[in-house]
């Protein structure tokens, strides 16, 4: 077998990794840069993290992001798990129809999804006076784009489960609820957890949908960073971005940890 192992290939790959990582490295480096502005700093400092902690606007954005992520993840994990379970079993009339509806939030460009929910909220507000733009509309919107991903992960886990465990429990006389509580749910758990982590990461990462559906007082981290970019960056924003990068990495690692378990069980 010939395998192209030319040095230029590895060199090109190294250059492309530089392209992928240069933005991340520069932001993290700037967050520890003592001279504040400019790229040519020399002294290391944690000062910006300190001032960040005292920045009320930034801390409120952190709280908003976490609140939005947690509530939408809770909702989408519940709905997505049920959907994933429903789609994992035998085919039934209408399943293909449900599957194509499920794909709509995935293929929709995020800006179109964002404005369509903006218009929905306007319309509902006009009819009923409810659904002011803000945290509730953001939770509704985030849950919508999270559901398909949770459902896909849970469905894959359910379909890959060894049926002999459930058969054994049934043979031993387990009732339907016993079967679900003691066999199906524990086996399904890593899939649900992986789906929830993915949903949370998607929510934390979202800018476009939040940008259009947020109201006064519901600014999230990406929105705050975006508006700071327009007004002029401060070292604190680099520190904030570094924290966001770090938490995204942690979530991804945690998600990867749930997978080896899959293989064992």
């Amino acid at each position: 077998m010939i395998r192209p192992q030319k040095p230029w290939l590895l060199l090109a790959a190294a250059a492309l990794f530089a392209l992928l990582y240069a933005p991340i490295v520069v932001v993290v480096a700037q967050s520890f840069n003592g001279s504040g502005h400019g790229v040519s700093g020399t002294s290391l400092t944690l000062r910006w993290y300190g001032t960040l902690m005292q920045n009320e606007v930034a801390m409120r954005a952190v709280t908003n992001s976490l609140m939005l992520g947690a509530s939408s993840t809770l909702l989408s994990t519940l709905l997505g798990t049920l959907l994933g379970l429903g789609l994992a079993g035998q085919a039934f009339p209408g399943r293909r129809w449900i599957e194509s509806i499920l794909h709509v939030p995935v293929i929709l460009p995020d800006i179109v999804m964002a404005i369509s929910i903006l218009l929905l909220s306007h319309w509902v507000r006009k009819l009923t006076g409810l659904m002011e733009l803000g945290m509730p509309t953001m939770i509704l919107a985030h849950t919508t784009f999270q559901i398909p991903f949770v459902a896909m992960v849970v469905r894959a886990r359910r379909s890959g489960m060894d049926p002999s465990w459930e058969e054994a429990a049934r043979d031993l006389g387990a009732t339907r609820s016993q079967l679900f509580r003691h066999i199906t749910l524990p086996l399904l758990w890593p899939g649900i957890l992986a789906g929830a982590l993915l949903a949370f990461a998607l929510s934390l990462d979202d800018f476009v949908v939040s940008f259009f559906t947020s109201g006064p007082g519901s600014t999230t981290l990406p929105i705050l960073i975006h508006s700071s970019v327009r007004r002029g960056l401060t070292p604190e924003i680099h520190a904030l971005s570094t924290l966001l990068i770090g938490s995204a990495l942690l979530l991804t690692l945690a998600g990867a940890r749930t997978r080896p378990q899959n293989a064992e069980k």
Partner: protein
Amino acid sequence: MPSANAPAPKAGRIARLLCLPATLWITVLSLVPLLLVAGISFMSRDDIGTLTLPLTLESYSRLLGFGPFGFEPLYPQIFLRTAIIALATTALSLALALPLAFAIRSLPGRWRGVALTLVVVPLWTNLVVRTYAWQLLLGPDSWLAAASASLGWLQPGEGLYPSLGAVLLGMVADYLPFVTLPLYASVERLDWTLVEAAADLGAKGWRLFRHGILPQIWPGLAAGTTLTFIPSLGQFLVPDLLGGGKTLLLGNVLQQQFGTSGDWPFGSAIAVVSLLLVGIASALQRLRKRA
């Protein structure tokens, strides 16, 4: 108590019940709003900007360039620019992902997984952060700008952004992982004996690539194209932050209509048309797959 071997219709009923809440949720918050967007795109606005009847095609004809003051090519130009940038982003990302995928394939087994993970990790960093980072890297204070200035490509004190090149760079860096993953999946399954056979028959260089490798990695290239072209049609953050006012794309115009301009019918019409473009792109994709 339900028996162990529940009959199929009953299982189907439970499955349907399980699917019901999420399907309802997505219908109400995704399909209904889309119909609303389509409907509003045909509405008019009165003097103070409120939506009213009669239904009209005015928004669409404005998009085609027929404004109140005769033909203006502004919007057709933006359409064309968006399509060209989306195509260029796709082509560049594919061209760069190709050597990356082959390089990863040539690594020893356990390093391949590590390299692939490293390709994906930047995706988990917020795009807003990655994009403003390019402002730092390309700005007037950066060494890249200084180097370009000393080579005479730039006026000293000028930055490499805002520019069309910066928009392309930002978009390619954003979509590169999306192209690399499906492409790698194809490259990994590549049958090298076919490539060897072509080489034995005297194919070299481009001909070897064209006939020995390209047909085999076609599915990966097609998947990468879809994953890049469709989202780059709706991209507004990267041109917003790296393009300045000069490189307005469809996404930016759409955003303006729901922000400062407040022209919802026009914005909705743009959304409908970009959805149509997405639909056409994925239909072509499906035809390709079947052929």
